[in-house]
């Protein structure tokens, strides 16, 4: 992940639910209330770039509350139990994009911040299952012309993908979209090269 990576920066803008652990007079604006102090226990959704450091930073209080930080945070709705259960049931049936355009990026960042072993397992399995489905659609989409007799219906980029396939592809998160594009372009380039070889 590079400092200049646009997708990483946009992932950093994803918001997670946070709870303030102290009163801050000057930060009322974060809670839509610039004239009032921010009270302990206020729940606000903060972008990752802000929440991460506030959660990690130590207030430097005395020894008795040594580990206390400015905020506590929870997992965002995109990684809620409902979503995890749905992914366990059938990873291909969940439109990840509706949860977050940077679903995996967000999940990775959250797992860096808190220890979520089970979540990691579910996500890994989800990605693998979905990746092979993505590869399948990418091959179909790129290889439409010529050799596959039955595949020629429909025009445009989603050649022969079909309605359910389109629905699945719409639900890809940003990382999966990149994977799809790579698989699609790779198949196409391979095919073009093979045709070029035949002609000479």
């Amino acid at each position, binding site marked *: 992940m590079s400092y200049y990576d646009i997708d990483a920066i946009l992932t950093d803008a994803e918001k997670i639910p946070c709870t303030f652990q102290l009163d801050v007079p000057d930060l009322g604006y974060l809670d839509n209330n610039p004239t009032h102090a921010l009270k302990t226990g206020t729940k606000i959704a903060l972008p990752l770039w802000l929440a991460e450091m*506030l959660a990690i930073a130590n207030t430097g209080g005395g020894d008795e509350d040594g580990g206390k930080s400015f905020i506590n945070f929870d997992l965002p709705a995109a990684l809620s139990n409902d979503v995890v259960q749905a992914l366990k049931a059938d990873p291909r049936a969940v439109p990840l994009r509706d949860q977050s355009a940077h679903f995996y990026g967000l999940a990775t960042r959250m797992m860096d911040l808190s220890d979520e072993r089970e979540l990691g397992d579910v996500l890994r399995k989800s990605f693998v299952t979905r990746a092979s489905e993505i590869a399948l659609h990418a091959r179909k989409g790129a290889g439409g012309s010529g050799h596959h007799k039955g595949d020629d219906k429909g025009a445009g980029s989603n050649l022969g993908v079909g309605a359910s396939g389109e629905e699945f592809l719409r639900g890809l998160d940003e990382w999966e979209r990149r994977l799809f594009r790579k698989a699609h372009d790779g198949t196409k380039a391979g095919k073009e090269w093979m045709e070029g070889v035949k002609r000479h």
Partner: protein
Amino acid sequence: MPMYGDLGNKLVQHAKRTQNLSALPAYQTELVRSVTREVRDLDRDVASMLEPFQGSFDPSENQATACTLLVNHLSMRRNKRCLLAYHRTRTDKLEELVWKGADLIDLSGQGMADGGMNGNGNGEGVSSGGGGSGGGVMSNLSPQEEDYVRQYGDLLAAYKGQWTDIDLTGSLEPPRDLFIDVRVLKDAGEIQTEYGAINLTKNSQFYVRQGDVERLIAQGYLQKLG
């Protein structure tokens, strides 16, 4: 309610769109100015917040102030990253376009052929574009970006100049034929070839050596036929 960093995010969304475009969209002068203003405002806040402490600020005794300072600092850092990423995305694109042979006149979107087109002179177009761009015509580039393109073009020309028998920015496709048919889409003046001068007037057609006109095809003056 808008919060610090929102404008920077808008800038990065622009950059994201830019990545998938072939041409460079207009420079977001206003947005860039707003984000830098935000950084200056935040910096002023931090300075005035720290002033009463006379350099002996103890975070553990003033936790609320420490928290506000951290939020301000993080907002500034975020804005910096957004600004840098936005500009870097654009300069990456500009470098790519310069390698493809676009010159400043094409990039500023005022591309009219007026002399300076003779021959495939490396970087000639880039340096001659300097005069034309000062006219205040609507350009998609900021003045700094125009300067960047000019200097990068000079740099590339100097680099290419080390090899006279190979064109580094030429096509990587091996040609099937040495000679090709081309049609002239825009008047491009006279070019010198090994076989004499050719006057490229609009809608005329020529049988020419591919190497002589490659750059003109890339710039859209000629269309390859067949």
